[in-house]
C-alpha cells in the first residue's frame, strides 16, 4: 500500500519512512503543506500520515491540507500527528462522518507496533483518536454528569472504544475475555441510550457524537 508522509522534521520523517517501508508500505515523503495537497489531490494514496503543523506558515497547514483533500476525495484515509491534540481539530476531522481518520500525539510513534496498527486501521476506514483526546472529552463529560451512570470498568471500556480500539484490543488492554467486553459494550450502549451497532466504525462515531454533545 502507498503511504504519503508529510513531516517537516527530517529525523521524524526519515524514521517514519523507514519504519513504514520495513513493513511493506510504499512511501512518498514531503515536508510542506502545498506539496502535500498537490500529492493528495493528484494521486490519492492508500493512507496519508500528516503533521498538523507544516511549512510554509508553520500553523495548521497540514490539517487544512488534509481537510481540503478529503473534501475532494471523501473518505481519503488520513492520520494526523501533532505535538498537541485539540478537541476543536478532532471535531473538524470527524465532522464529515466518513471515518478513515486518525489523530494522534507524535510521541505515539515511539511504540512502533501501536503506530503501525493505527496506520492500518485508518487505511481500513477506521477511526483512531489519541487517548489524550478521549481523556479530556471524558473529563468534560464527567463534569457534566453525562456518563455518571457507567461503572468504572464500563468507563474504561468506553475510553478505549472511543479511541477506536477493536473488541479484542479492548479485551487485551483490560485483561478480560472478548465476551466480557461485548457485554460491557452492550451495557454502555443501553445506559447511554445509543442504538447498538455491530459495525466497529459506526460504533465509534456514535460514541463520539454522544460525548461531543
Amino acid at each position, binding site marked *: 500500500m502507498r503511504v504519503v508522509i508529510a513531516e517537516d522534521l527530517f529525523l521524524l520523517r526519515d524514521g517514519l519512512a523507514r519504519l513504514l517501508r520495513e513493513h511493506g508500505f510504499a512511501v512518498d515523503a514531503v515536508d510542506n503543506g502545498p506539496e502535500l495537497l498537490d500529492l493528495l489531490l493528484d494521486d490519492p494514496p492508500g493512507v496519508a500520515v500528516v503533521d498538523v503543523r507544516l511549512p510554509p506558515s508553520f*500553523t495548521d497547514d497540514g490539517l487544512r491540507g488534509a481537510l481540503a483533500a478529503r473534501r475532494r476525495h471523501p473518505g481519503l484515509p488520513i492520520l494526523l500527528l501533532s*505535538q*498537541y491534540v485539540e478537541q476543536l481539530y478532532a471535531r473538524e476531522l470527524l465532522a464529515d462522518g466518513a471515518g478513515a481518520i486518525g489523530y494522534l500525539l507524535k510521541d505515539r510513534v*515511539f511504540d512502533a507496533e501501536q503506530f503501525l496498527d493505527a496506520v492500518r486501521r485508518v487505511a481500513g476506514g477506521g477511526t483512531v483518536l489519541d487517548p489524550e483526546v478521549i481523556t479530556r472529552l471524558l473529563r468534560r463529560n464527567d*463534569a457534566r454528569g453525562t456518563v455518571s451512570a457507567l461503572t468504572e470498568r464500563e468507563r474504561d471500556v468506553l475510553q478505549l472504544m472511543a479511541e477506536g480500539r477493536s473488541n479484542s484490543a479492548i479485551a487485551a488492554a483490560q485483561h478480560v475475555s472478548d465476551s466480557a467486553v461485548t457485554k460491557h459494550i452492550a451495557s454502555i450502549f443501553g445506559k447511554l441510550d445509543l442504538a447498538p451497532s455491530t459495525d466497529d466504525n459506526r460504533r465509534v462515531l456514535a460514541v463520539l457524537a454522544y460525548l461531543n454533545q
Partner: protein
Amino acid sequence: MNDILASERTGWPARLAAPGRGLLLVGLALAEAVVACVVAATAMLIPLGIGLYLFPPSVAWLSGLAERARRYARRWSAVTVAYPEPARPAVPAGLPGRLRWCGRTLTDRGFWYEYRWSLIDPIVGAFVAGIPFSLVVYGVFGALVQPFVWQPIDRAGGSNWYTAVHVNTLPRALLAVPIAVAVTVLGLWCGPWLLRVHARLTRALLTLDRTEELTRRVEQLAGTRAAAVDSSAAELRRIERDLHDGAQARLVAMGMSLSNAERLIERDPETARALVAEVRQNSSKALQELRDLVRGIHPPVLADRGLPDAVRALALDSPLDVQVDARLAHRLPPPLESAVYFAVNELLANTAKHSGADRLDIGIALDEGLLRIRVRDDGCGGADPSRGSGLRGVQRRLAAFDGTLRVDSPAGGPTVIELEVPCGS
C-alpha cells in the same frame, strides 16, 4: 424650519438654530444647578448610610448631563471635550463595595471637575448661551410690538425706552424699528460664535488641564508597566522552575538509564531492555510536561487560528455549555490576542468554579478600533471584581492594553462581564 438638534455649524442654518440651541443649554444649566444641590445633599447623607444608595445615582445623573454637554459641544461647535480617565467603574453590589465606590468617586478628580462644572456653568454658561435668544426676543419686540405699545404707555405717564431711544413720539418709535431689526440680526449673527464660546467654556471646565491629564496618564502607565513587568518576571520564574523540575530532570534520568542500559546490554540484556522501555516512557512524560508548559505560555491553537477558534477550543474543554459568537475580520496583534485569550480562559474557569451556571455565551466583536468581549452566564450572580482574585487578575492583564472590565452581576444572576480593549487597527 431647521432642527436645533441637527449638526449644522456654519451659515444661516446654524445662525437660525443658535437661539434655540442656546435656550436648550440654558435649560441644561438649570438642571445642572438642581443636580449640583442633589449631589451635595446625597454626599452628606453618606455617613447616615442612605447616601450610599442615593449618591451613586445622583453622580450618574450629573455625568449624564455632562455627557449631554459634551455631545452638544461636539455637534454644534466641533469642540471635542475629552472624557476623564480612567472611566468610573460600575457600582458594585453590597455595602462595603458601595462605600469603596463612594470613597473612590469623592477622591476622583474627574468627579470634582464635573461637579465644579455644574456650579459654574449655570451662571457663566447660561449667561453666554442665553444671549442670542435674548437679543432675538428683544429685537422682535422692538420691531413688532414697540410701535403699538409706546402710545398707551406714554399716555399713562410711563417712560418707555428702547435701547438708547426714549420712545415718546411717532418718529422716535419708527426710529426704534431699524434698531430693533439690527438687534435681531446681531442676535442671530453672533449665535454660533457664542455657542462656540460656550463649548470652549464647557471644555475648559470639564477637561483636566493638559499637564494634569498627562500626569495622570504617566501615573497610570507606570502602574500598569510595573504590573506587566512583575507578572512577566513571575511567569519566567514559573517556566524556569517547571523546566528544571520537569523536562530537564527527566532528561537527566533518561541519560542515566541509557548509560546503564549501555553498560548492561551484553551482560544482562533483559534489564537493559527494561531500562530502555523506561526511557521511552520517561520521554513521553517529558513531552507531556513540555506540552502543558507551552499551552500555558502560548497555546498552539491560538498561534494556528487566532482568537475566535482558540476561544472555541476553550469552550470545548469547558464542562459548561458554551456558545461562542466570534467574528473578527482580521487577526489581532499577537500580544493582545494572547492577553485576551488568557483573560477569557480565566473568566471561563471562574464561571465553572463559582457561578453554578450551566450555560455561557461569549460574544467577540471588533468595532471602530475597540475589541469587545461579552461573557454572559445563567448562574447565581454576585461576582465582585474587588473580591475575586480571578477577576482582578483579568483586570490587571487588560490594564497593560488600556482595556477595561465591567461586571454586572446582581445577586441571583445573570452575570454579564464585558471586556473592552482598544486595538489600533
